[in-house]
């Protein structure tokens, strides 16, 4: 991408995205294009990270392991559903992912957990997400029983309007009461302990701030 276009993109993104400053956006854009690799820009071809590449990043950088959740995260980033995370989706997504406020994170997580996108997290969806969370005990007649029970417990805790499913209001209220429930159905946000330097700005001596992105060959400046 030529410089002018890049500049314009940076400005737009910085303006719209609340959590990164200009230098950080620049850095992230460069990183994006590095990750995408050498591709000539052509009309009609979308430049972006496909599902596999994105999941690779989630795994390598953020230590995520749950297949299903990673899939959902990809969907969450890929707002236009074209199967690619383009550069804007990348920036916006990371903005919430790394530095979102509680409100932003709640919305994001709810979207991740709402598997069919109908605005409710149903029992079946909960079951699907929790189905591997308990160790299967061979002595149990019905190994799913524990999972079902867990789903019941969660519903009891979070379903405030008692309609058998979680609306966003239910979810939001539950999370405000107990923040631990933000990622109730699976770890869809990165764990700060892994790379704490990503989560806030590091002002440098020259007044610019940089984003320290861990890579095999060193940091992004």
């Amino acid at each position, binding site marked *: 991408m030529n410089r002018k276009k890049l500049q314009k993109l940076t400005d737009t993104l910085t303006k719209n995205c609340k959590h990164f400053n200009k230098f950080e956006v620049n850095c992230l854009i460069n990183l994006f294009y590095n990750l995408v690799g050498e591709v000539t820009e052509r009309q009609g071809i979308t430049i972006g990270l496909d599902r596999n590449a994105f999941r690779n990043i989630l795994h390598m950088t953020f230590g995520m392991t749950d297949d299903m959740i990673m899939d959902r995260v990809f969907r969450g980033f890929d707002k236009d559903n074209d199967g690619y995370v383009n550069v804007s989706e990348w920036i916006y997504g990371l903005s919430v992912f790394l530095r979102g406020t509680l409100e932003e994170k709640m919305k994001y997580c709810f979207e991740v957990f709402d598997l069919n996108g109908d605005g409710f997290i149903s029992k079946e969806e909960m079951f699907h997400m929790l189905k591997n969370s308990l160790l299967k005990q061979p002595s149990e007649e019905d190994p799913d029983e524990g999972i079902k029970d867990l789903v019941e417990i969660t519903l009891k805790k979070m379903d405030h309007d008692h309609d058998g499913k979680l609306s966003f209001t239910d979810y939001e209220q539950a999370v405000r009461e*107990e923040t*631990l*429930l933000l990622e109730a159905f699976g770890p869809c946000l990165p764990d700060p302990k892994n790379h704490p330097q990503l989560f806030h700005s590091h002002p440098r001596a020259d007044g610019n701030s940089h984003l320290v992105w861990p890579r095999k060959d060193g940091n992004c400046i």
Partner: protein
Amino acid sequence: MSKQEVRFSGEWKKKEALKEAPKKEEAAALQKALPASGKSVLEKNYINFGKSQMTKRLQPSLNWKATFDFKEHKSLLRDTQEEKHGGRLERSGPPVSPRRSQLVRKSAEKIEEIISESSSESEEDEEPPDHHQEANAGLPSEYWQIQKLVKYLKGGNQTATVIALCSMQDFNLAQETCQLAIRDVGGLEVLINLLDTDEVKCKIGSLKILKEISHNPQIRRNIVDLGGLPIMVNILDSPHKSLKCLAAETIANVAKFRRGRRAVRRHGGITKLVALLDCAQNSGEPAQSSLYDARDVEVARCGALALWSCSKSYENKEAIRKAGGIPLLAGLLKTSHENMLIPVVGTLQECASEESYRTAIKAERIIENLVKNLNSENEQLQEHCAMAIYQCAEDKETRDLVRLHGGLKPLASLLNNTDNKERLAAVTGAIWKCSISKENVTKFREYKAIETLVGLLTDQPEEVLVNVVGALGECCQEYENRVLVRKCGGIQPLVNLLIGINQTLLVNVTKAVGACALEPESMTIIDRLDGVRLLWSLLKNPHPDVKASAAWALCPCIQNAKDAGEMVRSFVGGLELVVNLLRSDNKEVLASVCAAITNIAKDQENLAVITDHGVVPLLSKLANTNNDKLRRHLAEAISRCCMWGRNRAAFGEYKAVAPLVRYLKSNDTSVHQATAQALYQLSEDADNCIIMHENGAVKLLLDMVGSPDQDLQEAAAGCIYNIRKLALATEKARYT
């Protein structure tokens, strides 16, 4: 192996790997079941079939096996319904198979069996835990629900764990049945193990529960026994403020007994807790996420809470001071958050019993803030401030500071509010200690505190009475106050208090009564109420402080009573009792008894009686002492006792004279005076003169002739006169 299974196992492994368990040999061996490996999630995904991995897990399992076998044996003996589990109890030899899933399954079996074992052993019903609970013989349904949740804690990944932890918080964790239920199903071990992992959410969830259930004294002990404290202390280093807060609050609960406090110190907890107090230091790290953040003020408050619990032990007080806790506590006093102030003042008040603290407290201007907070609305805060002042006011400068900062008035006005007994005890204590300074007494008088104090002499609990009487005792050192106390009708209740068993109270009462007895009219009242007899019987009290205090009080009584001699004689066995007290080892008792004897001996008849009881040899035996207080009173007693019969000569025979001469070398002028008097009296006997002369008394006495004290001059001169007279007579005899 499917990828799914493997990945899941990886996540789960954090809890499944067994750890060396150095804990005590409690029958609840579940503790050995699932400690955490503490590895990061990323690492766990790299499945390692290496032998070291397996042996690491295997090693502790052998120990575990022993208890497991025991349980197994026990269950087989009993007629159990556990077909599911009983028949499948496999000999848990080291698993040979390298296949991870099998290993996982085997461990899971053991875990579940142990769960069911313990549950079956703890009560009659043998239903396996994963059935939905039915009404059970005497067990509330919470028990089963909790047991289920603990099972999920053990067998779930991070997501399931967090859900189970959040659900557990919904129980009434303040209720003992719930608390013990958690413990009995092995929940404590799991909760503590969760603290040892790297998963922040699990730690937070676990601490929230531990914080609540550790209000129970049994649970506290269990937590310490299971080694929970060092883990919690380590969490204090976490960069996440909310974790620090939760850990500190839990430590505050757990450290409420001695072993817990000691454990905190031994694991370096005190230094870390003191570090929490430093708000400025805490704000270094920027907030990482709203989940893990907390206000700095909150962190400091939790640290102060924990320190308050810990500060009840002496070594911890020292540790806090050495860690630089005092300036930090002083800084926190300046805030106006009551929640913060209470633990801070509480800590200061505990620690202020140590002298090293009092010096530092003066330096840090803490008194000013304590006085300020006396005016707060919060009763608990007032109580702790008053207690702190009580502790610190042992020191004169502090007493002045309290007055200068206007602390006496609020103290006096708080006396009027008698509902809150703890606060009243603290306030009266502060008044007592402050009254040691005369200027403060004047102020209290101004604020009409003395009348109020007299009013508090009846119908109050002992803690309050001790302090009230102590305060009155100090106030009555002044003449006007003695009169005031009498006029308020204070003498009667005071005398009534002479009957009692609380030693501190008795010491204070005797002192107060003795002070009042200096006023003749009060003395009449005391006499009328039979107070002197009560004092005298306190001489039989086993505690030396009480004996001494009673004896001191008797002196003004005897001095000021009408017909003192008659009165003393009327106490059957009283004189013998007093003389026998001269056999005591306690210097204070001896000094006080000598003073009493001095007064008793003013009456000739009584002097005769005590001579018969052998007062002379007993007094003489005491002569060899370096204690100035004792020397002075002993000398006074001796000089009195000389005035009967052949006591003078007897003192000489019992070798009292030579030591007395040595008293003249003391630095204390009151000793000089008393000794000179004694020597003067003794010198009426010729043999004594010789002894005095031989011991170089003349030179010493000559110096004293020039003293500004007139009585001393006279006595010294008189003594020298006698010695000289004898010398002259001897010379004359030589030449005739």
